[in-house]
């Protein structure tokens, strides 16, 4: 018994480098040997899915990408799944891509190449267009709301906006039917809600990193955002709903095991804490 107690006390004070090593292994192994755990879509992911399903034919969808390589594992599967969903419905939806982050343009181009070009063989300028990044943070959002053509005179490839067929009739934010923001921080979802979606009543959904979901929940519950894809679990849930598994789903195996291991560490730490506390109380008593 004493040996067990000493072992627990030792584990409770373990060097953090051992924790790093163990976390490294528990994340790596499920990525190499997938567990294929079933994903159960939640209420918020279903709301996004249902809203996209319910879009009228030939809807004009504005997709805003504000994430970079660091948050790519969380947001990129959401964006590719959304694009897949929109194009697979085959209802003539048009996708217009803008970026509030410079890194977002790289990410968006990758997503469009993977889904629109290679998977669906769609035509640039007729089915989707990459308007690109503009500096200015929330000023870009305000500019899109008031006069998109003043802000975007050319697209990301340098083509004039007037020469792009699908830009006909698009002058301001209210000309869009739906907005999806794939956001990892500032500027992002909050700016879109505050300056675009809420004042104009254009419906919007979002996909954010797990840590941002706290901040976005009040907007979701208030109906200002129609559902939310919450981090990698949200991405995996959306992949499950559209039936196309990707890196969101494969990442969930690693995340599941890692979370359990962290809980185990917390449990061990508390066990050691209680034993220490009991010992020091006994020591004080004697």
């Amino acid at each position, binding site marked *: 018994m004493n040996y067990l107690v000493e072992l627990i006390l030792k584990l409770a004070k373990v060097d*953090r480098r051992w*924790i*790093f090593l163990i*976390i*490294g292994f528990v*994340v790596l192994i499920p990525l190499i040997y997938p567990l294929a*755990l*079933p*994903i*159960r879509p*939640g*209420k918020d992911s279903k709301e996004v899915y249902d809203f996209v399903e319910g879009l009228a034919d030939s809807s004009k969808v504005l997709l805003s990408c504000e994430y*970079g*390589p*660091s*948050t*790519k594992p969380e947001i990129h599967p959401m964006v590719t799944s959304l694009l897949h969903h929109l194009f697979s419905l085959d209802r003539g939806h048009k996708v217009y891509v803008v970026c509030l982050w410079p890194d977002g*343009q*790289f990410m968006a*181009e990758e997503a469009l190449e993977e889904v629109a070009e290679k998977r669906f063989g769609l035509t640039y300028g007729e089915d989707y267009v990459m308007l*690109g990044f503009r*500096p*200015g*943070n*929330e*000023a870009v959002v*305000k*500019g899109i709301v*008031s006069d998109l053509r*003043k802000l975007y005179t050319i697209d*990301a*490839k*340098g083509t004039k906006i007037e020469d792009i067929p699908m830009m006909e009739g698009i002058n301001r934010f209210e000309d869009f039917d739906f907005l999806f923001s794939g956001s990892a921080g500032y500027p992002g979802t909050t700016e879109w809600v505050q300056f675009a979606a809420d004042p104009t009543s254009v419906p919007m959904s979002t996909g954010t990193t*797990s840590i941002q*979901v*706290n*901040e976005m*929940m*009040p907007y979701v*519950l208030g109906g200002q955002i129609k559902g939310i894809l*919450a981090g990698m*679990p949200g991405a*995996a849930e959306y992949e499950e709903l559209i039936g196309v598994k990707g890196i969101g789903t494969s990442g*969930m*195996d690693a995340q*599941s*095991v*890692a*979370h*359990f*291991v*962290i*809980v185990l*560490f*917390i449990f*061990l*730490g*508390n066990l050691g*804490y*209680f034993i220490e506390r009991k010992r020091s109380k006994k020591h004080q008593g004697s």
Partner: protein
Amino acid sequence: MLWKRQIPILIVSLIGFATLLGWFFDQPTFKSFVDDDATQWFDILAAFAIFLGGLNLLKLQTQKVLMKQKGWQYSLFAIGGLLFAIVAGFFVKGNPEVAWGAHVTSKGTLFKWMFNYMVSPMQATMFALLAFYVASASYRAFRIRNFEATLLLSSGIIIMIGRVPLGSYISSWFILYLIVLVGGIVVNTIFKNKQYTAVAVLAGIILVTVTGSSMGWPVDKPAVFYLPYLQEWIYRYPNSAGSRSIMIGIGLGIFGTSIRYILGIERSYIGE
């Protein structure tokens, strides 16, 4: 004194009031100034200011190399990185078919290569550190010291487990048994009587077992103890309530601070 004190305060007040009033007036010229021009002025200032920052960085790193200070070899990487980015951005396209400007994201350019093979992996590496740091911070900080800490710990565990697919395998009945055991600990702490504790735990186990058997041991019922539903509830209600109150507080703080700047009450930002 006029240039360092009164004029900056006047500029802040004028632009502050203009930006504030711009939300209430839809006069086209005024609105265009507030929504587009004013914020773009800042971006232009910031773009020119990058020269100051870049030159400062270059100066400090070069000094380190020339004076052979400790770790000067790393400064070579800093200087080399800065110069390489400038060359890739302004001088060497790498793909002659692409126009300047579009070369930043086009395939086959040096800048794109730099982004794909240097910037992206480094950004991803630094972000990945968070996984390790979250584990070590949780391990160190999550202790059951008092009621609030216990509440924080238990809601954190519920969300961590409930959010992932493995959590949906954990039956509500397992959680109920855990609650019975925790209840036994509480009874023991209050009454310090082994008999009472044994009776309480036994009664709890019998109750849960009988109820579970009668219901056929469904994994997700009672729903209140099913971790995925519980974590959803925590996210949507207590968490949102807390978020809203912090948001209101922060919003008020930002409002109060901004009004102080606009009215000239707070002048510390100019060094007063």
